[in-house]
């Protein structure tokens, strides 16, 4: 397994898989990610004619259909575009590509099914290890690193108290992320810290937040609203109790879930919570001197401009 735990060295040019959410509710994440790439001299090449990864839904219809959706994208990156690293900023996409990689590597029946489907659809068969899927956090962490971030900071995030929220799909289940929990320098599945590292390097004060990987109820955000509102409230209130002004996010579903149910908690339960939500790419962008408009900060439902003005960041 040693090579599957290895992060490929050259991350200057990666295949970019934005996914459906980044073309909809997560457009600010899409915009800030692309803007950040330009600022840092990293090249994102969008996967040609990509398809949806199936999110949290298609696997419930059939897990191998979900795997098919993922490997079709990975296969295009490898065989049509000649790229062997796929970067996905959305936890759902990232998780599903990782899951497909795991199943192709470890499950004979999945391999057989996908091989037949590739033949029928005229695509090259996806083989284990053809591409490595990374998250936007891996990408910035490994392509740029904390030291370089500190060097590039124009407006320090000092004074901004941030709780980092990673959600479920970035770390669970552990066995689909063979590169995590590998000691020094690798990401942890129980206490993820890549976002902490990056934002701290940009000057932010990171609060000790126990609900980093709690669930926001994203899969049932509309189908079981009351449960989702309660789960989101747990996160918002814990962050508030930890003294955070901002909850930094790295997933469009988590982000919009927190925003939506913050509004819903106020409307239906009359419970108001203070923290505002910002994508980590927006926060890093601000530190590098990119304007809020270019980072899509106005596009968030959660209104953070007042706070950012107060902290002298805009």
């Amino acid at each position, binding site marked *: 397994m040693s090579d599957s735990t290895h992060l490929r060295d050259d991350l200057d040019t990666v295949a970019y898989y934005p996914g459906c959410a980044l073309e909809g509710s997560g457009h600010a994440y899409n915009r800030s990610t692309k803007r950040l790439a330009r600022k840092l001299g990293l090249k994102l090449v969008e996967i040609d004619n990509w398809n949806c990864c199936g999110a949290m839904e*298609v696997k419930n219809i059939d897990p191998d259909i979900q795997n098919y959706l993922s490997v079709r994208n990975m296969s295009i990156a490898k065989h049509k575009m000649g790229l062997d690293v796929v970067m996905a900023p959305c936890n759902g996409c990232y998780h599903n590509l990782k899951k497909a990689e795991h199943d192709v590597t470890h499950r004979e029946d999945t391999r057989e099914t996908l091989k037949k*489907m590739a033949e029928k659809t005229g695509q090259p068969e996806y083989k284990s290890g053809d591409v490595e899927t990374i998250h936007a956090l891996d990408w910035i962490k490994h392509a740029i690193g904390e030291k370089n971030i500190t060097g590039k900071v124009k407006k320090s995030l000092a004074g901004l108290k941030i709780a980092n929220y990673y959600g479920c799909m970035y770390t669970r289940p552990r066995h689909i992320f063979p590169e995590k929990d590998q000691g020094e320098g690798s990401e942890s599945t129980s206490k993820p810290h890549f976002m902490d590292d990056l934002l701290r390097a940009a000057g932010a004060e990171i609060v000790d937040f126990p609900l980093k990987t709690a669930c926001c109820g994203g899969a049932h955000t509309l189908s079981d609203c009351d449960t989702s509102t309660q789960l989101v409230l747990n996160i918002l209130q814990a962050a508030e109790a930890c003294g955070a002004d901002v909850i930094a996010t790295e997933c469009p579903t988590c982000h919009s879930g927190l925003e939506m149910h913050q509004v819903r908690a106020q409307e239906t339960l009359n419970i108001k919570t203070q923290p505002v939500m910002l994508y980590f790419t927006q926060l890093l962008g601000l530190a590098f001197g990119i304007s809020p408009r270019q980072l899509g900060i106005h596009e968030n439902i959660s209104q953070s401009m007042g706070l950012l003005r107060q902290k002298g960041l805009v």
Partner: protein
Amino acid sequence: MPIHEESLIRPENLRKHDELNIDDVDVSGHWSTFIESRAVSDYNEQLEQEVAAFPGGAFIHRCWQCGACTNSCTVNAINPDFNPRYWIYLVRLGMEQELLRDKDIIWQCVSCHKCTHVCPRDVEPEGVMKALSHWLEAKGHTPKSQSQHFDEEFYQQVLETGKIEEGRIVRNFFNRTGQPLQQPWLIRMVKNMIRGLPILLLTRMGLATLFRPKTKDWSKSKASIEELIEMKESARKQILEGNKSS
């Protein structure tokens, strides 16, 4: 035997007597409550096989009842009746009637994957919860859950175009489940959202509702997906119907 921990026994399994005399000994009062004796005989011996045939249920046989799933469960922390370990136990024993007591909450699994993360036997309990709720619907024990409506709407869009458009998902989901779109919190949220959006983006999003985002040359993929689904559904049907006739 008298019962000291009555709260642990379901009321219908308790038998109380105001006055009771056993073998000339008066055991009225505190000592006169008994557990109804019973023997379970209505097993569904195929229950595990049936559940395993639904997407996500394939590894239910691996469970050794450690309880890590329930211990880690997000929904269990909100509702102690939500108990994946117990349901897996009942399915493996074939105790369908007992399982049906919880039929209306099983669909509420939020897929946080904490159970699959900690499961030492790779049962994928999260998948088992999904399989269980599909099984409940297929057997007619429950109507389609809200979650199932959402999954079907989502799948349908991916199948048709290779991509989804969130606005369409929300509208169609509310339509399917007969909920009004005009809910105060939704209106407030949409207002908050639109306030900040640049005109260009608003236009683009408006256009996306008219011209659906599509993956090009998707027809072969669509056919191939439909073929696989058909195959798996007919295999599932065989198991369910085979069990009914036997």
